[in-house]
């Protein structure tokens, strides 16, 4: 089985966006080509030298994928696009800091976008609450409701990378805690609130979930030991 970290699959079409959008769907172009990591690495090196054409190619190839990450954390399209714009400004200035020895270009890009989205989510939590018209506890609880996205996304990821058996040792709470923190950028406090668990327990669930994931990947030769 090939290492999923070496591919960048763009999932579009049949899957819904993290939030029902107010914009008409026909205005949204669909991204349907998977960027090759060799291409990404080449464009990154060109961007570091100030090559605007490579910068645009990098944007065209990755922006749809990266927008999805910000969108599911922020649950708001406008904010997600704001994050994406900030992220690409940072990419232009920081491309030279990407070190191919440490990881794939897509991993580097994902972390820029996800970190910025999490920062914005936390700094604008009040604005998000007002936009949703709910108080914070209701909104967080809704994220942990049965059938909500994060658990399903984690299950899908576990299946696609082929570690169902290994990850099956996690309890449902551990899986849910991990999914909420990774996919939606919740803090430990918010996870504890959503799952009605003590803070220390919530932290332990997340930690164990991640340690299991790494061990499972290492067992399949898909992560550094």
């Amino acid at each position, binding site marked *: 089985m090939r290492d999923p970290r070496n591919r960048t699959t763009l999932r579009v079409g049949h899957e819904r966006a993290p939030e029902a959008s107010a914009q008409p769907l026909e205005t949204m172009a669909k991204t349907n080509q998977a960027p090759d990591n060799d291409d990404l690495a080449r464009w990154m090196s060109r961007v570091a030298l100030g090559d605007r054409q490579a910068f645009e190619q990098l944007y065209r190839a990755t922006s749809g994928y990266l*927008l999805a990450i910000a969108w599911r954390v922020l649950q708001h399209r406008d904010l997600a696009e704001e994050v994406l714009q900030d992220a690409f400004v940072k990419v232009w200035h920081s491309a030279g800091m990407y070190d191919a020895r440490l990881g794939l270009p897509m991993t580097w890009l994902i972390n820029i976008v996800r970190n910025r989205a999490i920062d914005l989510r936390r700094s604008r939590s009040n604005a998000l609450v007002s936009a949703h018209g709910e108080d914070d506890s209701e909104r967080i609880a809704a994220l942990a409701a049965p059938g909500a996205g994060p658990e399903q996304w984690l*299950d899908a990821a576990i299946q696609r990378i082929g570690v169902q058996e290994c990850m099956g040792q996690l309890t449902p709470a551990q899986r849910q805690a991990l999914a909420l923190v990774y996919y939606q950028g919740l803090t430990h406090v918010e996870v504890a609130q959503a799952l009605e668990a003590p803070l220390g327990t919530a932290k332990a669930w997340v930690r164990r979930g991640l340690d299991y994931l790494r061990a499972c990947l290492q067992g399949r030769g898909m992560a550094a030991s």
Partner: protein
Amino acid sequence: MNYLRPELLDALARAHALGTLSPGAARRFTRVVAGSAVAAKALADWQGVLQTLEEGAPGSPAPRPRVWDGVQQRLFERAERTPAGEASGPRARGGPLAGWLRWPAGLVAGALLSWSLLVLRPQTFDMEAASGAAPASYVGVLQDAQGRPLLATAARRHGSVLTVRLLRPVTIEPGHALTVWAWSDTDTTPRRVGSWATAGQAGTIALPAPAESLLGRMTHLGLSSEAAGAAPTSPARPFIAEGACAKVW
């Protein structure tokens, strides 16, 4: 604290990759990563583990065209409106800059000039406020060895971008990038703020944290030329320019 102790390093790298470190701890760990290949590897390994979770996540529509337009506008449009005036040929960091002693007097002048620019010509920094009043910002005007203004900087107090504008052309060695540093009167060790591409005279530096937390205690700014792509923990000396970091609010 020894951040490189294996158990602690692994825990910090895991939390940083996941995004659960507090802002202060995250900033400290970012500095550790910048100065340690071992820490950088630990973080990258965890980021790689987490990326596998993207396999199950939903996609989204492509971003609207205005996103790319905004990127272009922020990065290039103002730079292209300025006259091309970069001097040609590499200029060493030392040479004619050696022996300058005019900075202390320049700090006051720089602060005054930066205040004047912000209030009288806020569009210089793309900061025109709807009310007509300049927004709360950190500003600076850095001067060269001869005391001539060389670089203007501005960041909104709670903003995440430092806007920079060269007031005179600067030539740096190929493969280098202009880098801004900040330090305070009480802690004179310069902290790297960031670098920007020098395709034009204006640019932006994406800040890793809100300006308030990065510049709130800083009183001085410096400009150096560093190898592009490097994340040095100390600047190349002497500075190309130096000036006060002033709060305007």
